[in-house]
């Protein structure tokens, strides 16, 4: 079930290790061309597992528009 949050990756700080892709229960994250992770906001349920596991601490949970 989608929450009012979704994950967003700070591309400048992402080390593209892929730890988040392994943790995501929805398969909403992929590593783009070995450079950084990108999140599909439509698939993301905002569970925060990726944020908890990110070794570079570069994932934030953002409020969806109209989700307040």
């Amino acid at each position, binding site marked *: 079930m989608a929450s009012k949050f979704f994950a967003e990756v700070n591309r400048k*700080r992402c*080390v*593209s*290790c*892929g*730890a988040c*892709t*392994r943790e995501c*229960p*929805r*398969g909403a994250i992929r*590593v*783009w*061309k*070995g*450079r950084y992770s*990108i999140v599909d906001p439509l698939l993301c349920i905002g569970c925060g597992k990726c944020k*908890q*596991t*990110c*070794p*570079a*601490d*570069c994932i934030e949970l953002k409020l969806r528009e109209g989700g307040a």
Partner: protein
Amino acid sequence: MTRKKRWYDYLWIWPILYFALGFFNILFAWLGMIDFLLPLFIAIIGGNKFFCNRLCGRGQLFAVLPRALKCSRQKPAPAWLSSRRFRYAFLLFFLTMFGNIVHQTCLVYGGAKSLSEVVKLFWTFRVPWDWAYTAGATSDWIAEFSFGFYSLMLTSTLIGLIVMALYRPRTWCSFCPMGCMTQLICEIKSRGEQPD
């Protein structure tokens, strides 16, 4: 939704096997070159970090251990540890140390230095490891490289285990020299491109 397990999800066994084999016979240290060359090969040919993302046994081990043993504080690491400046500096240091191993190997090959049957931890502490090699079993330079490379692999794994315990499980990945090098290659390969 849980992702179906694939064969490469069990590669955390690989580093354990590697260090166990090297403990009894140091010549197995050469197998570590797979971890050195394969990520570069994949990044150069494929332009991606499939090795880091799926095949890295060490990264998996750092993820699996805390799950099984609850041995990680799960705290965010300091930001400087994953900063570009630190990552590149660590990569440079690591490559220098690797260059030193190659240099020592060349000296032994040329007869300018004798084989030292020690494993050097953290590039400082010399640990006798002579049981793992029978003199004359192969050329001395082959054994010299084995001891040097095994030292590098063991030291980096120990650093990884320390930061795993102190911070998040895969903190090593945030400054892993191979990860840094392959990301740099991928950035160069896809320069100017943007995701859809």
